[in-house]
C-alpha cells in the first residue's frame, strides 16, 4: 500500500470500529450490527465458557445494557491491502452482565468490501 493511502484507510477502519464501541457504550447491538460482515464470526471465553457466534455477541450487548464508563483504546491498526487487524483494549466495562470495571482485550480482523471496511471476526479475552 502506498503510504499516502494509509491515513484514509486508517480513518475508515476507525469509523467502522466506532460503531462497535458506541454499541457497547449504549448497550445497543443495532448500532454495531452494520459494522459486521454477514459471515462474521465471534470467539472467546466468558466466565470460563467458550462462546461463539455474533448472535451471542449481539444478544449479550442488548442484555448487558449501557456501559457509559468504557474507556476504549486502539492499540494497533495494521492494513494489508484488503485485510486489516485492529487490537482494541477496553477498560471500565460495566453493565447488567459485565458487572463493574471489567477489562476486555480484542482482536478484530476486517475485510475491505464494496461497501467499505467490515468486521469479519472478533476474538476477545476477558481479564
Amino acid at each position, binding site marked *: 500500500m502506498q503510504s499516502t493511502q494509509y491515513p484514509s484507510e486508517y480513518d475508515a477502519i476507525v469509523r467502522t470500529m466506532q460503531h462497535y464501541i458506541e454499541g457497547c457504550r449504549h448497550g445497543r447491538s443495532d448500532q454495531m450490527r452494520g459494522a459486521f*460482515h454477514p*459471515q462474521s*464470526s465471534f*470467539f472467546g471465553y466468558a466466565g470460563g465458557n*467458550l462462546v461463539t457466534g455474533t448472535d451471542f455477541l449481539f444478544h449479550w450487548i442488548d442484555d448487558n445494557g449501557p456501559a457509559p464508563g468504557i474507556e476504549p483504546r486502539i492499540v494497533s491498526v495494521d492494513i494489508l491491502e*484488503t485485510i486489516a487487524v485492529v487490537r482494541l483494549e477496553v477498560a471500565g466495562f460495566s453493565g447488567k452482565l459485565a458487572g463493574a470495571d471489567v477489562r476486555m482485550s480484542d*482482536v478484530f480482523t476486517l475485510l475491505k*468490501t464494496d461497501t467499505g471496511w467490515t468486521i*469479519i*471476526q472478533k476474538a476477545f479475552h476477558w481479564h
Partner: protein
Amino acid sequence: MAERNAPQRTLESWKQIAAYLDRSERTVRRWEASEGLPVHRRRHQKQDSVFAFRHELEAWRQRRIDGPAEDGLPPSTREVAGSGVSSYLLEHDAITRTMHCYIAAAREGNGELFRPACHPQATMAGYCQGVEYSGSMEHVFAWVTANGPAPNIEPRFARIEIVETIALVHLEVQKWTGRLLGAPARASDVFTLLRVNGEWKITHKVFHWQD
C-alpha cells in the same frame, strides 16, 4: 576435537528421522503435520531438505508420553515450573507448531493436514482474483488439496501476538505454486487462534493474494 566423537546431533532426512523414532516415514510426516513433531527445513533452489535435532525429538516424545495435564493446562505451562524457560516462549512455540500444520498442508497439497489445527467452527474470508470468498474453513481444506503440492513455498512469520487466550499470526507466504495458482504467488494471511483445552486452534483465516 571432542566433538568428533560425539553422537550426530542432527538427523538429515525423513528416513533418518523415521528410523530414529522407529516408525515409518509416512507416520513421522503425519506427526509433523498433526502433532507438532519438530522438523526443520533448509531452503534450496529446487526442493527443500528436512532435518531434526535429537534433543528436540526427545523433548517432543517426552511431552507426548506425559499427555495432556489433568488440570487442563497445556503441557507447556506445566514444564515452566523449575525449567527456567519462559511461558511466553513455550506458548509461542505451541502456536508455531499449530501454524506448521497449515504450512505442511500447503507444501504437500493436502488440506487434511491443516484440519487438526482448526477449531470445528473455524471460518475464512478474503478475495481470490477479485471474488470475495467467505465461509467455512472447509473451503480452504478443499482448495489446498485441489491446488496440489507447492514444494518451494517460503513461509515467514511476520507477527505473532499473544493476548492471554487469543493469538494473532500474520503469515507471509511466497513462491506458492500449484495446479490452481500456476505461477508463483504471494499470500498475506492473518490467522486468529484460541487456546482451547490447552491447545492453540485456528478460529479464523483472512487472506490477501498480492498482485
